[in-house]
């Protein structure tokens, strides 16, 4: 797993913990929690997948450069 992916996962977790610590006492808390958690999941999963795809593509490119005379 790349460094970017680990940071993304930690940030997503921090956001979800913050939202669950602060929001539950509020009116309409269910909608607020769902909005924040779904956004964190959409952005977090995309960022995590992108970081892994970039790391794999770079590994593939570097591998090709190594065998090219």
């Amino acid at each position, binding site marked *: 797993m790349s460094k970017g992916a680990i940071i993304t996962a930690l940030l997503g977790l921090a956001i979800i913990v913050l939202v669950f610590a602060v*929001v539950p006492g509020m009116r309409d808390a269910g909608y607020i929690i769902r*909005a924040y958690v779904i956004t964190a999941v959409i952005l977090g999963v995309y960022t995590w997948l*992108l970081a892994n795809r970039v790391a794999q593509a770079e590994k593939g490119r570097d591998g090709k450069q190594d065998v090219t005379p």
Partner: protein
Amino acid sequence: MGNIIILVAVAVLAVLVIAYTLALANKPVEAARRAGMIAGIAAVVLILFGLYLGLVWAPTERMMGDSYRIMYIHFPSWVGTAAGYMVAFIASIAYLKTRNQGYDYVAASAAEIGLLFNATGLVTGALWGRPIWGVYWTWDPRLTTTAIMAITFASYLVLRAFIEDPDARARVSSLVAILGFVNVPIVYFSVRWWRTLHQVQSSPETVDSPMVWALRTMMVAFLCLFLYLLINRYILARIRGEEELEAVRLEVTSE
């Protein structure tokens, strides 16, 4: 006066972000990677700070109660969407003018990131609409034009996947991005042209100062996140594009 200065500062920042993303087409990958790392760190710090401001520091809204706090991710999502589609639009024009493949990579990356923020904007809008309007979705002009915008740019990405020739793909998808962008100003002005359910844009003069500051922080945070994602998506598009061009070259040579 203070509000105008801050508004101008945010607008200048948005213009700089858009200009930088367009310059990516002629930049070495290493320089882009460094800028991406800085944008990523700034996004992490600002998102955490902005969430504290929006969820803890900002007061409850008089009419909507706490559900208005969805605004702190809803509106910044539209900032990311507009930035993405605008970059795709300008980069597509630049590609048609110069035929520099780098602009095509920028356009495709920006359209994908724009669509990502478009999705979070629609989801958060629906979750805000339910407690305030009583429905998740209605065929209000703002919502309808926004859905059309998402479908247009999703079609742009699908179209790219179906065309194999890199030049033809870049040419055709540039035209689609330019045509698709026509809808973006319609989305923005739809709340003024057709006064229905969705409210018109708020002014900082009519909103409490802590709410404005939380919103501005989250807007800048999402712009930094947009830049981070776009740079990484561009690096991926460039590596894949170079591999594809190399494969085409080898095929031509072997023939």
